[in-house]
């Protein structure tokens, strides 16, 4: 077996084992979007009619946004676990083994993706029970986009963790990034409701395109420019974040 794949899977299995010992965290991670779904979703019912293209179904509108939010928030906190490991010398111990340093990151990213997949399925299933409707293929594409963006955020979070090595620096930094992302991505309400200047501003927010892409995919239009743009942005962010993460893990003094 290729040693890179082997090293990654050793790291992945170790991480998953620790996660499974504490499965509560997976559920805690999905709590926030589920609460939005249960307590905010019903508020959209009277207004969703005015959103273009949503046939009056508030959950078909809301779930894609919540998926992207899950990918953003859930994954961005992945780095905190890495800081704890670094502090206890685990990262250094792994770095004196002959294992590829990129594999040390990739194994962890795979764990983040596996966790995100479970959460995404829970969220979509719950949404379906509440009334979400969409094509199966479209939902799969939507979840794949979520995983791409989640992977990007997890890689960035791990890179940030190994650069700052401090929760006290990480937490405010993530907050500072997250707030504008959340507000300008149209996760809870479509940006098209806003005035022109706000819409124009949100054009510069990659995550808005991704939210739109996931929404289009859910409604079954896989050929729209929305899906194309969403996929392009998600893939681009994934590549950039992976490159950053890899270079931090390979750096001499990490």
């Amino acid at each position: 077996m290729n040693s890179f794949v082997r090293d990654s899977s050793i790291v992945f299995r170790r991480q998953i084992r620790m996660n499974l010992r504490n499965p509560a965290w997976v559920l805690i991670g999905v709590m926030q979007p589920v609460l939005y779904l249960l307590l905010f979703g019903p508020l959209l019912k009277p207004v969703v009619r005015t959103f273009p293209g949503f046939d009056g179904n508030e959950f078909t509108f809301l779930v894609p946004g919540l998926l992207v939010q899950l990918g953003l928030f859930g994954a961005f906190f992945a780095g905190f676990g890495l800081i704890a490991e670094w502090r206890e010398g685990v990262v250094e111990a792994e770095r004196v083994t002959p294992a590829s340093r990129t594999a040390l990151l990739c194994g962890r990213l795979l764990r983040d993706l596996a966790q995100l997949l479970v959460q995404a399925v829970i969220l979509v299933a719950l949404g379906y029970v509440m009334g979400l409707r969409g094509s199966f293929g479209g939902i799969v594409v939507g979840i794949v986009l979520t995983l791409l963006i989640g992977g990007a955020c997890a890689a960035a979070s791990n890179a940030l963790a190994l650069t700052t090595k401090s929760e006290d620096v990480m937490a405010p930094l993530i907050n500072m990034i997250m707030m504008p992302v959340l507000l300008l991505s149209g996760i809870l309400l479509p940006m098209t409701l806003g005035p022109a200047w706000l819409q124009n501003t949100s054009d510069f927010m990659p995550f808005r395109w991704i939210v739109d892409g996931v929404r289009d995919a859910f409604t079954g239009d896989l050929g729209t420019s929305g899906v194309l743009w969403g996929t392009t942005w998600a893939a681009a962010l994934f590549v950039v974040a992976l490159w950053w993460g890899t270079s931090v893990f390979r750096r001499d003094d990490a």
Partner: protein
Amino acid sequence: MIEARGLVQTFHTGQGRKKRPVHAVSGVDLDVAEGEVVGFLGPNGAGKTTTLRMLVTLLKPTAGTARVAGYDVAREPTQVRRSIGYVSQTGGVFSSARAGEEVMDHGMLYGLSRSQVETRGKELFEQLQLDGLWERMPKNMSGGQKRRLDIVAGLIHDPTLVFLDEPTTGLDPQARANLWEHIAKLRSERGATVFLTTHYLDEADVLSDRIVIIDQGRIVASDTADNLKAQVSGDLVDLEVADAGQVAVARDKLASIATQVEVDDRHVRGRVQRAGRAIPSLLRDLEAAAVSLDSIEVARPTLDDVFLTLTGRSLRDAESAADGPGADAETELEGATS
């Protein structure tokens, strides 16, 4: 096993205009032969850990070269990593994971199979008195058990060269003595070459064949503990004179066979070569001069005396100086890079 020439590590502290270089290690030469146990001794902040981190490929030398286990640390890091075991100050097993699984995962990163690491892991648990702790989480272990577990993880791939960074810091005396036995066995039973850093004199004295002393980023001595102690001129003889009026006489008598004679109240101290042979005649002289003593103490030179002789400071002074503002930057840096 280790051959380092002119190793240099320079960090930069501060930002922008305040940026200034810190020379953590400035030109270290080291030679360690196969099967040797070498103690790397120096006060905190002397550059011990930084040197070690360059040798184990965690830090690229700013200048200089090092061959470890036959490979160049800068050009062939993977081969170096395959050949060495490294037990850092913090250890390397996660406190909330099961001990056995952590050791197995660590071993598998060396390319060993699951069954190989399980067999070896269980053997090592037994050898290092960790029987029955395979399933235990390190956070529920004693300090000594946790340290032994760290060593197990470092030995899982059967390295021929083992690096131990401050192996007994923070342990109680009993656990230290126990760990020393296990460290001694690394060579006596496994035939491993051992390179350990410590700022404890007794530890270096007990464990090592040879002691390398580093101070302010430079090697100041490298020899056996006995030879190093022999550099200090003689044993310390401390006479406590019964009558304060006879102190001057006692001082003259001691000065005839001793160097560095000093008087402190009723105590007269000096360094005497081979004190065991010189003392009987000294006592006869004192008796003839009617000087009576309350006590007499003879102490063999310690490594602290060696450090004092070499650097003009005692090791303890050097430690407390390391708490000052100058050394702070380096301590911080060692933390930031560890």
